[in-house]
């Protein structure tokens, strides 16, 4: 066993408390009409901009139910999640890796290099949590205000110990790992055979 393999094995062992096999995040999700959405949720989205083309989804999870608004605003793809009472849970949007602060990106890159022999980003999302007015300002200015908590959710293809899998890793605003989930992909036998 060479040195690289030993380092990777130890890294994976140390991080194993963070890693959970992603059971499906939800049991089902489906499109719903705007009329079914709590008014407070609709009001929040409308306060971002009045001309958004919004698609609403209902997600039924193992323990909870939520509503999600998906839309494009200022050339970014947003997902905003609410609970069944219309209380905002979080705001996330897709970004490119160059939009991560360089010092934070370097820390993320070093951490991924220690975890995987090879890795490749599939999707990067930035998460905002905070007060409604700060969130709306941050979204419209394309920059988080001081009171906003920022985190990054990265989906990547990672190869470790000869095995390539899909992972979803959450980093805080300092580039430290908060959570790792292995993504279980859906069966495709009805498409393959």
């Amino acid at each position, binding site marked *: 066993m060479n040195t690289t393999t030993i380092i990777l094995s130890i890294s994976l062992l140390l991080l194993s408390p963070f890693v959970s096999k992603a059971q499906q995040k939800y049991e089902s*999700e*489906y499109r719903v009409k705007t009329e079914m959405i709590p008014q407070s949720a609709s009001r929040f989205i409308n306060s971002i901009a009045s001309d958004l083309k919004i698609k609403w989804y209902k997600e039924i999870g193992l323990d909870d139910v939520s509503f999600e608004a998906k839309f494009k605003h200022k050339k970014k793809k947003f997902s905003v999640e609410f609970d069944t009472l219309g209380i905002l849970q979080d705001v996330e949007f897709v970004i490119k890796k160059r939009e991560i602060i360089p010092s934070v990106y370097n820390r993320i890159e070093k951490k991924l290099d220690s975890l995987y022999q090879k890795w490749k980003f599939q999707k990067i999302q930035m998460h905002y949590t905070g007060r409604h007015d700060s969130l709306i300002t941050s979204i419209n200015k394309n920059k988080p205000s001081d009171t906003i908590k920022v985190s990054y959710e990265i989906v990547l293809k990672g190869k470790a110990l000869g*095995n390539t899998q*899909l992972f979803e890793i959450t980093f805080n605003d300092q580039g430290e790992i908060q959570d790792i989930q292995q993504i279980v992909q859906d069966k*495709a*036998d009805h*498409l*393959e055979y």
Partner: protein
Amino acid sequence: MSTIKNGYSQSQTRVGILPSINYNHKINKDWDVNFKYESRHFVFENSTTQKRNFKYEYSLSDISALVGRKTGLNSKFVLGVLTRIEPDAVAYRTIQQFIFQTKIKSFRLVHRIATDQTFSSNEATEFRLRYRVSAEIPLSGQKLDVKEFYFKFNTEVLNGVQDNVYDLEFRLVPNIGYVINKQHKIELGLDNRLDSFIDNQTRLVSWITVNWFL
């Protein structure tokens, strides 16, 4: 369904039913097996030489076994064999496939590049090169879940050589599917196959397909 009648070409249209059962089993993280039984039943024929005719005719049964090995996160290599049982003949086919998956927005696309060789005691060996793309479109959200419908569309081009004669076939297959539970899916579709048009003997065969995946 088309009928072309002129002095230079003739064509044939046939319609039938194509039920299939597909059983897939994952052996471990790298290997899986697929067993399939499919049969063909003609119910209608129309050609330039014959009048339209509703008539039942059993055509054949195919039994296949395929073994797949993952070559990457979204790709696999597959080898298999098929036995074709017709009323008066049996043929054997060897199959090689490379399958990989891509995504456009929330649509899954599966690409299949395949070669196969069909051996029969009363016909020359047929060699084929095929490319198929299958698209899955969930109808209730962005992701396919249990108890949801989906639309599946396959399109395939098949190049064949038999006895030094080349033929080209196109297939267009739209399907509506339903996810019964995590193990079972059922589909209803229309498998349209157009071939033999290179030598002016256009043949269109349309199958009403019923597919059960377990």
